[in-house]
Each structure stands twice: as C-alpha cells, then as structure tokens.
C-alpha cells in the first residue's frame, strides 16, 4: 500500500505538470511588469540637506535605499533602515546609526504643540549634531501621519529580532504572526544643483545727492536640516518682513520733497544667509565696490542688518564697539538696546552675523537681532514655525526700529518731548495687516537655499519679494555666479522623494508556509485515497445494508 502511494506521488511529478510549467512560467515572468503591485503605503519624504561648503562635505551623501525597517531598539546591521520619531532618538543613538545603520527615517511630531520645551531643545540639539558631520547613509524626514504611527508601533512591538525569541517554536510562531516592513526609496543619486543666488536691492535717494548712505540688509532664506521643511519663520522671514515694512514707511516719507531725509537709504535682500556664509552678500559687495561705475555704496554711514526679530529682546551685534558720536552709536542710543560685541574670526568656517560681511569691507555695520548669540540653535531648525506671539514681537520691533531710524535720519534729539506725537505716530505707523500677510506667506514657503536659489528668480519667493520692493522704489536684481573650479558652495538634489513601505514576511516564513501546504496536501491526498473506503462505510450507514459488489 505504501509503495502504491509513493507511486501516486511520483506520478504527480512524472505527469504533464512540470513540463508545461517549465515553458509557461518563464514566459509569464518575462511578460509581466517589473513591479506588479503597488505598495500599500506611499509617503512623501524629505531628504536631509546635502551641501559642500568650500568643498567640505556636509549632510547626507546618498539618496536611495531598499532596506528592512527596524525600530531604534531592534536594529543591528547596515541592512536595516531605522524608523523612529524625531523626539525619541538621542544624540548617542544617532551617532551609532550614522556609523552603522543602512538608512534613517525620522517622523516629525504631529504638530509643535505636542512637544514639551525639553523635547524642542532636544530636537534642536539633535539637528546641530546632525549638521556637524557628513552622513553616508540616506536620512529622510516624513511628516506625521496615522499610517506611520501604526508602522512605528508595529516595528517597536514586532518580535522579528533574531536574538529575542526563546525557543525555536516561539521563533517560528513569531515569524508567522509578526509584520515586517520593507522600506524603499528610489531616488536618483545626489547630483549637483545649479544654484544662482540673487540679491535684490533698491535705493531711496536722500535730499542732497552727496549725503551719506544707510544700508539696510536682510537675507530671506531659511536654514534647516531638511530643505523642504525649513520654513524659517524667525530666521529669517522676520528680517525680510521688517525690511519690507521699513521700505514701505520710508518710501512714503521720501516721496514728498519736504519731508525727505538727508541720507539715502539702500535696501538689500539677499537669497543666501548664514548657512552658506552670506555668499550672495559677499558677491554683491564685490560687484558694488570693485566696479568703477557703481555709486550705490559711496560714503556709507552704517549698515543695519536685520536677522531673527521675533523674540522679545532686541540686541545689537557688532564686531567693533561703535565709536562715540558715530552714526551707529547715535542709532543705538535711540534704540536703547544692549550691545553684544564679537570679533570677526576668519578662521571659523562660517561668519557669525550678516554685518561681518560688511565689516570686512570696512563699513560700519551691525546686526539687529532678538537672539543673544549667533550660536543659538533656533537660527537653523525645522521647528522655526510662525506663531502669533512672534508676530507681535516682530511688529513691535519694527515699530521701534522705524522710530529710531527716523529719529536718526531727521536728527530729532529729544523725541520724548515731541510737540505733536500724533503726526509722528501717523508717519511711522506700522501696518500690521501687511506684516502679518508677509510673515505668513514667507513662513509658509520652504526657503532653503536648495529651493530659493535653484528656482528661477522670476518665480516663487524671490519674485514676490522683488515685486513687493519695487512698489516702493526702483529695484535691481543681480544674479551671482559660483566659481566653477573652486565652488564656494555646492548644493545637491534631490530634496524630496517618494517612500514606499511594503509589508513583508521574513524569508523563513515562506519555508514554513511550504511545510504547512505540504502537510495540508498530504491530508488531501490521503482523504482522496481513503474516499472509496469511506464511501463504502457511509453507504452502509445510509442504506443500512452491506453494499454488494
């Protein structure tokens, strides 16, 4: 009997089954599309920034990966992609991930309000740690979504880890019951982006042509770990908004000959800020000072840079203490702000403040900022998002600055006893609606250099700012070129990609499934073999008589 059954099994394989399948399957495989099924999860993810500054590499150096997803506690090799909430990963863990893991996927918090101040500080410190050195593994950031929450939960509670399971049976059960995730990002390899930083400047001409010039400058890009997610509300949407508002106020004053001030005002908006060493300002200064016919920067009284103006306390940052009796000192006494003095250190990789670019060219320059130190991590964080209190601070700082600047320009020595403060207020009133509008617009746009300087100057944020400034004065947009052979900086694409998450089972699972199927088929085989005998018994039972053949 056993021999017969063995024969029956062999017959399955001896019959026509294998032969036509051998022909048909390869044909099907060739004919079928490469990726026949879409993943159940598809997400937009944003790559960590990648750039070279003076050929020193920064940020994440690769873009695509196809790895198994693991949680912070269960990953072990470079074949794993670590998936975690950004607030959960510590700096030590990140260091380990950087040196060993295959990829890193960080999910941002649902919104800022769920974060405690400690968590915010932690994220800012983490960002600083991440920008310090280059990372060879791809690093991506994703916005929060319920699906990601489920995936992270699954990964944390999944027991796929090789060392956790006790007995072989337990391990087998785990492989069947647990979910694995294969995480795939197929992006092109990082490529250099063509970056064309621009500077927008305009001039309000003063009463006498020969009088001094006051320069007001701000950069409008944002610096953040993730280009697509760096909104930069404080640094430096606030500075750009303040500059636009000052331009509006003084263009009104300067439009009538009777109240036009003495010095000319030059407004400068640059598209590359502290993250890339104020490159656009440097180039613009070279253009303006070194060419013979440019007259815009003759006899500069002082340069006022605006940077991060939406925290409560204004500070004046200088690289040289202002001369007593000088113009800068006169403005400072009118602003009544403390001075922070920091010498320029050319050995540093980055300049501390915007005004240092001007100070290097021997101009009196200072930066007005509500940050106390240039090392404040708030200057380059993805948590730099707009808020109502910031907007209020910004409006009051603009009002204070406008007042001080007007009082300096018109040389009003004692504004406190001004005879008619109403006129004064009216002329220098800050238009809150316009500030709010610009603040919200700028901080809703990702304005990292990777985005602002690579798009055409006739589109996006640059074009909007140019149009806004040109309502008040004649503006010029100058585009700067990066040195081809020794680039001051290089930016790399892609900044965003699509991430696919496939739920998968470990390879062992298929083997176990095969065993189960074989067991099932064996049962079916014996059921069919035993069916005649069963039928006999069954018929006897039904008819009540022995079946006669």
């Amino acid at each position, binding site marked *: 009997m056993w021999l017969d059954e063995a024969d029956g099994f062999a017959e399955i394989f001896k019959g026509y*089954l294998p032969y036509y399948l051998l022909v048909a399957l390869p044909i099907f495989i060739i004919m079928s599309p490469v990726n*026949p099924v879409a993943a159940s999860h598809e997400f937009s993810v944003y790559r960590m920034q990648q750039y070279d500054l003076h050929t020193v590499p920064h940020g994440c150096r690769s873009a695509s990966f196809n790895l198994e997803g693991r949680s912070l506690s269960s990953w072990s090799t470079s074949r794993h992609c670590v998936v975690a909430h950004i607030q959960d990963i510590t700096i030590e863990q990140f260091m380990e991930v950087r040196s060993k893991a295959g990829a890193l996927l960080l999910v941002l918090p649902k919104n800022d309000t769920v974060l405690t101040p400690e968590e915010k500080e932690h994220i800012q410190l983490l960002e600083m740690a991440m920008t310090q050195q280059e990372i060879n593994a791809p690093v991506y950031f994703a916005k929060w979504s319920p699906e990601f929450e489920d995936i992270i939960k699954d990964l944390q509670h999944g027991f796929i880890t090789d060392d956790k399971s006790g007995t072989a049976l337990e391990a087998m059960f785990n492989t069947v019951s647990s979910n694995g995730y294969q995480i795939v990002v197929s992006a092109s390899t990082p490529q250099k982006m063509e970056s064309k930083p621009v500077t927008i400047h305009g001039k309000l001409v003063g009463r006498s042509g020969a009088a001094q010039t006051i320069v007001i400058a701000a950069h409008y890009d944002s610096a953040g770990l993730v280009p697509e997610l760096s909104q930069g509300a404080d640094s430096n949407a606030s500075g750009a908004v303040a500059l636009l508002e000052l331009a509006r106020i003084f263009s009104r004053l300067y439009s009538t000959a009777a109240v036009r001030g003495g010095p000319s005002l030059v407004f400068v908006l640059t598209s590359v800020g502290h993250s890339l060493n104020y490159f656009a300002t440097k180039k613009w200064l070279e253009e303006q000072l070194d060419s013979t016919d440019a007259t815009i920067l003759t006899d500069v009284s002082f340069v006022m840079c605006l940077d991060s103006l939406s925290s409560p306390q204004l500070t004046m940052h200088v690289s040289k203490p202002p001369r007593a009796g000088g113009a800068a000192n006169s403005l400072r006494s009118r602003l009544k702000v403390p001075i922070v003095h920091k010498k320029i250190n050319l050995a540093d990789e980055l300049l501390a403040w915007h005004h240092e670019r001007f100070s290097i060219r021997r101009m009196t320059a200072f930066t007005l900022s509500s940050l106390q130190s240039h090392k404040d991590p708030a200057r380059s964080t993805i948590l730099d998002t707009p808020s109502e209190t910031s907007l209020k601070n910004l409006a009051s700082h603009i009002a204070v600055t406008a007042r001080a600047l007007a009082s300096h320009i018109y040389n009003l020595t004692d504004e406190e006893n001004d005879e008619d403060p109403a006129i004064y207020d009216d002329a220098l009133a800050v238009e809150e609606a316009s500030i709010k509008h610009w603040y919200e617009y700028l901080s809703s746009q990702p304005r990292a250099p990777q985005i602002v300087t690579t798009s055409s100057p006739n589109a996006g944020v640059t074009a909007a700012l140019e149009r806004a400034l040109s309502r008040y004065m004649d503006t010029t947009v100058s585009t700067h070129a990066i040195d081809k052979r020794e680039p001051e900086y290089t930016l790399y694409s892609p900044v965003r990609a699509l991430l696919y998450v496939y739920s998968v*089972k470990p390879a062992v699972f298929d083997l176990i499934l095969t065993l189960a199927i074989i067991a099932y088929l064996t049962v079916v085989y014996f059921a069919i073999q035993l069916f005649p005998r069963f039928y006999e018994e069954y018929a006897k039972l039904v008819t009540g008589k022995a079946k006669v053949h």
Partner: protein
Amino acid sequence: MTLYHFGNCLALIYAPYHMAYKFSGISEYATFSKCLYAGGLYIFTQLCKMLLLATFFPDSDSGQITGEYDVFMEILKATVDFADLLGLYFALNSVPGKGHAKILTSAIGWASAEVVVTRSVLLWVGARGSEFDWRYVRSCAESNVALLQHAATAALVWLWTRSDLPRKHTPVVITLLALSPYRMLLEDAVASILSLSAWSLLALRALHASAIGLTALAMYAILAQQLGI
C-alpha cells in the same frame, strides 16, 4: 511576495485539483477533453450571465461606490446564477459514462475553469509582488473549497435529472438546488451577523460545502444501491 511565495500559492491551488483528477479514477476514462469541454461550458455560461446582468442590472457598480447594500438587488443578481445549474446540466449530459464519472468530470472541469478565470490573474499580480497579504493564501484555500462545492452541486443536478430518484428525496434535491445560487449570499449574511473574520468565513464555507456534499453523497449512495452500481 516572491516567486517562491507564488509557487506556494500555486501548489495550494493546483495540487488538490490534480489529485482529484488523477486518483478519483476518472482519468482512466480518458476524459481530459471532457474536462476541457466542461470548462468551455463554464466560460460560455459566465458570458451569458454577464450579458444578462449587464442588460437588466445596468448600474450595479454605482451602488457599490455609494456603499449602499441593496439586499433585494443582490438576491435578484444571485438568481442569475441559476444559469450555472443549467450549464452544469449540459456539461453532465455531454459526459458519457457512469454517474460518478459524469459528476466528477464536469465538476473538476467546471471548477478548474473557474479557478483559471477568476483567481489566476489576482494571484499573478498579487502574490508575486513584494507586498505580503494573507488574502492570497486564503483565496487559494478557497478555491479548494470551491471544488468540493461544485462537486456537490453537480451531484445534485445529476440526481435531479434521474427519473428513478426515490420520491421522498425529490423535495430535498430541489430545495438544495434552489438554494445553491444563494449560498454565497447566505454565507456572507451569516458571517456579517456573527461578524466572523475572513478565515472563519472560509471555515464556514468549507463546513457548508461538506454538509451539502455529504447529503448529496447519501442520496447518491441510496440511488446507486437501487441501481446496483
């Protein structure tokens, strides 16, 4: 997931059909062409059903989009499945030989055609992708139950055609036959009332199919004894 997984699913579908064909003894009648014929009849019947559905239930898809579940409409649609019984009847008629050979040949041909038409594309597209889902394994197991179900239905149809069927069995056969187009509806209804999981629904189907199969087998056994075969 992988080609290997696809192979697993294929084995789960194919092997029971193959074994049923090989070891039930009908292969000795050289009835492979008859199986093919039954399969052809299946496809033809489905085309006719589609024609009927498209003519009389034109907006059946819009209801699904809005999420409404019209019980009466579903029952009417299931009624069209009586055409299946007619098709099986023709398939039984075209197969020569003894009763059990007739029943098994047409059932296997019919069920194989159904598997090829309804499950092969789903499997090819789904089980070979990198995404894993239990659904594909389940669908393969379901096709095994379908074989049992079709065999039971074919047996009932054959019993119904016999004029020498014992009189007391006739109402049972006719009731079971009349209910057979609605069996999916009934199973789904029970599943939704008891809120069963997909695997329990599969078990319910298997139970239901074997219950009907055993009933049909009992009547067949009695008839066979009368005839002395």
